[in-house]
């Protein structure tokens, strides 16, 4: 989100806060979120896709909703209204192509007839999904794989380039100019995790019945659209229906989070960016001391950028009466890597625990694998996947493995120390410092896409350059 977008959302929160006696908060958040998907989407280099990508986010949310409805549920009046609002809203937005300037999308939307045809096809697909696929394990499994396949296609460079070349051909553009970055599908990494969460919980019979309006709002809630946090649907939707008044206490809580977030992201992180490690600075620097300065600056920049963003998301949520979950809890003050991962990008780590680490660990434990092997396989594979989620490239994989191996080593160390007395103060301080250095060295792999360059930086850091 840009500063301008944050201020517009905050102003909307203040205005709406005065009107909840007359307007419905769930409908307001639904409308604002559905429109914000289009408004926040940056320009895509394939023609029409800054319209199609947000539309696909909403379409996928509606399809997954239809697939995950409980067996006996029928459409309510509210569901029909929400579906009609999505369709009519999409058509009206497409009709803005006839205006002299674009209104909400980054570029001119595609033809209204095409949007109408695809909206009709989507409605048919959603009806078929609800009629024949609803709650069926195979269909839910296939839908989960489809969502993950889109994620991989967007994140793996050769696949993304191929996909973009195909889409360019379809839209009459030169496919040879395609790059991996033509489609910047805003928020899809997070949308995908929310969709998989709903699909897996439905398969396990744990998903409650939600209306289309509330489910779509959950998937694309605008404060958490671009970079999380990843809320769970059973915690999010009930909050839409709580009585909410924007009083002095709520304003103060939201204001504090917004001011903290804006300061972290647009002051601290942006200032640190001038001397934070990047490929160019890494290649030019030959002094060990300076290389450490660059690395420490990067470690704090990425923290302030991301934690600041989360403060802003939480603050905006509070303005609209939604308490989003915390994503950071003083990660650089933790005495070991396990504690670091319980306090860094908390909702992502929780998601991976719930849908990957726990099922895998349960499977291996019930198949009588030795404890050390279960911990090794569980932690290394989970962290490798978390790494690859940032992008399917070697440097992110190495970063994930760096943390996976670190977590395994720490768990073995902790197991050996079970029952030992609590560490002294100086030992705790050393542990915090050691953990920070390990995490910071991990950022070298994260920030530098070329391994030769990462090795150069590591050599300089240890005085071997």
């Amino acid at each position: 989100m840009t500063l301008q977008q944050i201020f517009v959302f905050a102003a909307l929160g203040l205005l709406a806060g005065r009107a909840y006696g007359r307007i419905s908060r769930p409908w307001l958040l639904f409308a604002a979120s559905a429109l914000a998907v289009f408004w926040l989407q940056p320009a895509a280099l394939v023609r029409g896709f800054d319209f199609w990508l947000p539309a696909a986010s909403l379409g996928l949310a509606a399809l997954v909703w239809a697939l995950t409805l409980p067996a006996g549920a029928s459409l309510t009046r509210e569901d029909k209204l929400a579906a009609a609002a999505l369709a009519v809203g999409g058509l009206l937005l497409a009709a803005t192509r006839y205006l002299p300037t674009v209104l909400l999308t980054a570029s001119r939307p595609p033809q209204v007839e095409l949007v109408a045809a695809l909206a009709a096809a989507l409605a048919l697909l959603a009806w078929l999904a609800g009629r024949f696929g609803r709650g069926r394990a195979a269909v839910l499994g296939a839908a989960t794989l489809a969502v993950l396949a889109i994620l991989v296609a967007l994140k793996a460079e050769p696949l993304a380039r191929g996909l973009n070349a195909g889409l360019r051909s379809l839209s009459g553009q030169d496919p040879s100019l395609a790059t991996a970055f033509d489609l910047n599908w805003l928020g899809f990494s997070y949308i995908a995790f929310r969709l998989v969460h709903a699909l897996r919980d439905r398969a396990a019979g744990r998903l409650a019945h939600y209306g289309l309006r509330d489910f779509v709002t959950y998937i694309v809630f605008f404060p958490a659209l671009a970079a999380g946090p990843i809320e769970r649907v059973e915690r999010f939707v009930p909050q839409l229906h709580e009585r909410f008044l924007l009083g002095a206490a709520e304003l103060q809580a939201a204001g504090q989070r917004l001011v903290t977030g804006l300061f972290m992201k647009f002051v601290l992180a942006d200032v640190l960016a001038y001397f934070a490690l990047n490929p160019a600075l890494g290649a030019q620097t030959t002094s060990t001391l300076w290389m450490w300065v660059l690395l420490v600056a990067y470690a704090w920049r990425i923290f302030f950028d991301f934690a600041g963003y989360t403060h802003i998301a939480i603050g905006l949520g509070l303005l609209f009466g939604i308490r989003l979950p915390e994503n950071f809890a003083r990660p650089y003050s933790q005495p070991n890597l396990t504690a670091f991962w319980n306090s860094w990008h908390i909702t992502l780590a929780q998601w991976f625990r719930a849908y990957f680490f726990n099922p895998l660990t349960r499977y291996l434990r019930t198949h009588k694998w030795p404890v050390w092997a279960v911990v090794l396989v569980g932690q290394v594979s989970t962290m490798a996947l978390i790494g690859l989620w940032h992008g399917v490239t070697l440097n992110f994989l190495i970063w994930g493995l760096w943390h996976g191996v670190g977590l395994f080593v720490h768990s073995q160390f902790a197991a050996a120390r079970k029952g030992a007395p609590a560490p002294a103060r100086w030992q705790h301080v050393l542990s915090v410092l050691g953990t920070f250095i390990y995490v910071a060295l991990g950022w070298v792999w994260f920030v530098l896409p070329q391994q030769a360059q990462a090795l150069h930086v590591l050599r300089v850091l240890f005085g071997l350059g």
Partner: protein
Amino acid sequence: MTDKNEIISKLNTYITTELLKRPDKTIGADEALISGGLIDSFSLVDLALFVEQSWGARIDDTELNAQTFDTLGQLAELIAARAS
């Protein structure tokens, strides 16, 4: 009929001897197990398997977090509600 105190006592013995390897320790019914860092993510799965074997109460993989239960008291309530 499963008594809550009985469940807490059995959980306490399992966690202190098997997971923490500190049989001399007693965990308070309100002590934070997950958010307090007492039980790591791997041991949490073992705890879920133990609960399933002992009481037939299934705790889903998505429920192994501090929001679902964070103390022995909360876990015992969950077990009492689901025990077969």
